[in-house]
């Protein structure tokens, strides 16, 4: 098979083209630090009142040394005072400290409450921005990703950021603060002991960093195994009929066992790594205690330390343990958050290859529209030409059917016509205006496409039709349905416009979904209607309704339909026959059917299959 050599696209000055741009989502290669900075900047709400929140965090952290200091003061100045314990001093010290504990508690409350508020506001903004941007991307880019992956950009990925902003990030700040405060306090008592404590704990900190790398790999394995497992378990439910029909229960059960056990193994491995830090932290803490008692006593004998200070030291060491245990979790959450931000930024950094021309966009006047393809070629990124130098004109008000084998270029033709894609070469013009110069608002109002699958939202029939024109009243909707000759169908529905259609419209039959899509297009009232006819067979009663509705919908407008049925081609004013990216025949059904060629062949196979 010899495909025509792809030609380099000619770029018209100032007109954006997309053909040599990869349609996939942008993959950010920013460093972790840059990602973090850009991520934070995306939601200005994060910074809202941040100074006060940080100040409160500082106070709350400082509050953690109140008790160790109290212990030291009470022992040194209260208990070992000459002439027995100085109860007055102890009472004063305890009262002051109790007030401080309460104050820091209150600070901690406000700090956390403010943080939750600021981060949640910021995350909601992030979700909104990413969501909007996904819709702004071209169909080509949208289809280059799994739908689930796009959904993750506004759900799971953002949740990972939130876990860090509300937990890991806070723990990080508190932990660092705690280590600093503890170190300062220790140094005030005895710098030698502070140094000794760090010498004990520092190796642990490096170990934790290393462990965390292993751990993130282990968590990835858990996620992958879990995904496999859920896939196979899903098959036992969704493939219930096939499994029974082919008697593959044993094989499926074996696959379930394999993936369940593989998941368990991965979980146990990850858990073994994640719990390893705590026991080590305990050993290190014990080592620190022992060395400090020995060194502290020796320093005390040398007169450089009081007994209270040494005991307080032992309390302060506990402040070292939690940050160490939490460190793996903090690193892990930070890594997840940065990965989350990177993915969200990947969406936002993807420049929509089909963009609104902006303020210089032109409005199309209303009325039947003419279509012109001016030497249009198109190739998918790094693919062969699928449309090769198509040059044609469709007069206003004509009803055109597009036919051709799979891969002949008819779908590409329709996508270019609705500006779901831009041509690599040449131009598509409506009423002699290049589509790339038409304002989106005007384009979407005048050109409406009805895709093959009539996609419906999980709402009522009425709401789904209203999707085309939100301000339409119920009466107008009923009128539209009646005008399309579907009044009797509507009255046959138990709840009329209020009939729930179910998820993706699945409570309706495929044919009924198609009907709703047609009514929706009718309510949108476009001047150019583009249809991709559904291939799946529907029951004859619905088929009659669809034909009738199509009839009403196309009358008085320019319409272009990809025809999968003979009747559609027969009914058209004109048929465009595509083959290998070119329009090879053009004319009415009656003219073409008698001429030997692609159309006559197609027609012959249609006749054997449907008449």
């Amino acid at each position, binding site marked *: 098979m010899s495909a025509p050599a792809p030609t380099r696209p000619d770029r018209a000055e100032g007109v954006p083209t997309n053909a040599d741009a990869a349609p996939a989502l942008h993959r950010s290669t920013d460093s972790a630090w840059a990602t973090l900075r850009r991520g934070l900047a995306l939601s200005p709400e994060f910074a809202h009142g941040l100074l006060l929140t940080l100040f409160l965090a500082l106070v709350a952290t400082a509050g953690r040394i109140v008790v160790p200091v109290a212990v030291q003061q009470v022992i040194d100045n209260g208990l070992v005072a000459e002439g027995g314990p100085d109860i007055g001093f102890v009472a004063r010290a305890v009262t002051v400290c109790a007030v401080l504990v309460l104050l820091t508690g209150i600070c901690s409350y406000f700090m956390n409450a403010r943080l*939750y508020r600021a981060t949640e506001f910021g995350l909601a903004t992030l979700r909104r921005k990413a969501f909007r941007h996904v819709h702004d991307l071209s169909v080509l880019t*949208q289809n280059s990703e799994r739908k689930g992956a796009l959904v993750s950009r506004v759900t799971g990925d953002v949740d990972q950021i939130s876990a860090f902003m509300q937990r890991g990030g806070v723990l990080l700040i508190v932990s660092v603060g705690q280590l600093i405060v503890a170190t300062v306090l220790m140094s005030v008592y005895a710098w030698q002991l502070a140094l000794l404590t760090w010498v004990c704990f520092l190796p642990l900190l490096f170990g934790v960093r290393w462990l965390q790398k292993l751990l993130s790999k282990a968590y990835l394995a858990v996620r992958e195994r879990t995904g496999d497992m859920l896939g196979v378990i899903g098959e036992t439910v969704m493939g219930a009929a096939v499994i029974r029909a082919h008697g593959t229960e044993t094989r499926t059960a074996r696959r379930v066992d394999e993936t369940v056990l593989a998941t368990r193994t991965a979980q146990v491995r990850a858990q073994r790594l994640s719990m390893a830090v705590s026991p080590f932290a305990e050993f290190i803490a014990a080592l620190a205690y*022992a060395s400090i*008692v020995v060194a502290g006593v020796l320093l005390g004998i040398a007169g450089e330390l009081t007994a209270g200070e040494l005991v307080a030291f032992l309390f302060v060491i506990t402040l070292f343990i939690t940050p160490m245990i939490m460190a793996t979790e903090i690193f892990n959450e930070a890594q997840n958050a940065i990965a989350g931000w990177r993915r969200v930024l990947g969406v936002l950094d993807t420049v929509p290859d089909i963009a609104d021309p902006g303020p210089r966009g032109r409005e199309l006047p209303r009325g039947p529209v003419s279509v012109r393809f001016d030497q249009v070629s198109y190739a998918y990124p790094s693919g062969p030409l699928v449309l090769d130098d198509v040059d044609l004109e469709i007069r206003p008000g004509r009803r055109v059917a597009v036919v051709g084998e799979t891969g002949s270029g008819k779908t590409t033709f329709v996508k270019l016509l609705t500006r779901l894609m831009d041509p690599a070469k040449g131009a598509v013009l409506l009423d002699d205006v290049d589509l790339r110069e038409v304002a989106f608002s005007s384009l979407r109002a005048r050109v409406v496409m009805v895709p093959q699958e009539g996609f419906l939202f999980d709402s009522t029939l009425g709401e789904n039709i209203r*999707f085309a024109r939100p301000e339409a009243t119920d009466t107008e909707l009923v009128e539209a349905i009646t005008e399309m000759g579907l009044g009797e169908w509507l009255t046959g529905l138990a709840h009329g416009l209020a009939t729930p259609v179910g998820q993706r419209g699945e409570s309706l039959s495929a044919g009924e979904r198609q009907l709703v899509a047609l009514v929706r297009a009718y309510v949108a009232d476009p001047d150019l209607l583009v249809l991709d006819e559904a291939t799946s067979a529907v029951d004859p009663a619905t088929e009659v309704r669809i034909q009738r509705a199509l009839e009403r919908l196309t009358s008085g407008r320019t319409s272009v339909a990809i025809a999968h049925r003979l009747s559609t081609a027969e009914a058209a004013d004109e048929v465009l026959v595509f083959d290998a990216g070119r329009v090879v025949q053009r004319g009415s059904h009656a003219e073409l059917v008698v001429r030997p060629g692609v159309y006559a062949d197609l027609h012959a196979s249609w006749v054997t299959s449907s*008449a």
Partner: protein
Amino acid sequence: MDSRVLAEGLRVLWVAIRAEPWIFALAVGGAALHAGVAVASATVLGRVTEDVILPAFAQGETTTGALVAAASLLLAVGVLKGLGLAARRLYAGLMQFRMQARYRQAVARKYLDLPLSWHQRHPTGQLLSNANADVEAAWGPLAPLPMAVGSVFMLVIAAAAMLLTDSVLALVGFVVFPALAVANVVFQRKVTPVDTRAQMLRARVSEVAHESFDGALVVKSLGREDTETERFTAAAHRLRDAQIRVGRMRAMFDPVMDSLPNLGVLAVLLIGAIRIESGAVSSGDLVQIAYLFTLLALPVRSLGWLLGDMPRSVVGWRRVSAVLGAQGRTEHGRTPLDGEGGLRVELDEVGFSYVDAYQENGNATRDLSVQSPEGIEAEPRTTVLSDVHLTLASGRTIALVGPTGAGKSTLTTLLMRLVDPDSGTVRFNGTDVRELAPGEIARTAALVPQSAFVFEDTVRDNVTLGGDIDDALVWEALRLARADSFVAALPEGLDTRLGERGTSLSGGQRQRLALARALVRRPRLLILDDATSAVDPQVEAQILGGLRDIELSATVVVVAYRRATIELADEVVYLEQGTVHDRGTHAELLERSPGYHALVTAYENAAEQRVADAATEQEVTR
């Protein structure tokens, strides 16, 4: 949390303990060691303060022996504590993961065991979450369980240690720790409903995004990006506000949990000073009790975690139990199905009805409420097939034709014994299908449904389904199903992985793959339930022509809408409202059955209608 939930939650835990007694014992042993040593460490610290630190500072000298003793005691405490901690966490995790794995296997096996009719009554999403989220929730409390048990142990010995040291100082503990426990319970009770709501709203955000992105083409072609963004933003804001409420509660709870033990330590210092003055306690005792307070704060929280996980655990357990307790499995006989060639199929007085969930514009939706077979009997039923008598002669091709809801698809599932009829019998070569040995039907008959199911596996495995079938035969089947060219074009041919994490196929390609899956088994009964509906008419004609051309010594049943498909059949069975209305050749039925005539000529009717409309329109314009 009401006591009923607590009781049930404990019963669920007991199930796990009985299932994994040794692992549980090791986990709790570790927890007890950790708890015991932790309390002991306070005593050690107190002794070290009293006997080593204070004398040394007072006298200005110390002995090496005292220092070594103090250091080794402290080190020993650390090592034991670490070991206990490691054992506790390791085995707690192991127990949780083992129970999850065990119940996932059990649930999936049950799904494979239960009859298709059961599956049809339960929504897919619910069954998936039973096997995943519900199993996970049921065993959620196993993670904090050993720590909680250890904590109770720790609290008891800590109380004893405090009482032994000084009953007055111990009183402070008896105030602080119950207060901590109460704060935990109050917090859990308050936060649970708010948190549940936030989870629900989170799922809602995801649903809106999923739906909106699924319908991206419609959104784009109607220019509704703004309204969709508004709809999503509204959902995101509801989640945000719920999360802020949860956050505010957490923000309140954390400082309370931090401050209570701290205030306890301060109280111990003050009261301790008074007790020292009266000579009742020593400074070491005081340090020991103060230290115990800082130690106990975290373990008390683990009780809160355990209680917090329990309501979810109970709900998860109930759902999982409902699946595992579901009644009904297909009983088989022992008769083998011998011989070769197309099966002779007889249906004798066959009737079938299903539970009537609710009827919405003629489309029955799946039943969501019914869980038990007793419940099913009480529900109103809709008759799908009644008194069907039918003989399909060996090797013939029979088209099943009828309007929507006539019972065509139900009939095909009865033929495969995916469901059993309420009355009457289905016989293969004279043997009641219920008498056949397990696997016999799957071995000899193949059904290709309208919605083709693709396994997340390679193309080859999707065709062979794990059977030991030569690649040449696989290609042969693919060629017959007109799937060979697109499979050959896949990056790795037969080894290409399909599904979520692999290549995705179009509807027509999936149907052709499913057809190949049936053909490769050389079935003696081939049932096509509108199996080529998403295939281009031209390709469909090729496929069906190909089936006719090869010597497929099978009885073929085709559910068909398209006239060309019907015309390929030797015989047509016309169904209407669940009964066989007429049978004969296409030409005969066209002649004598008005319903059949109306149905198969509906396409032409539609075309004529359109021509008539056009004519009227022209007259009007003229």
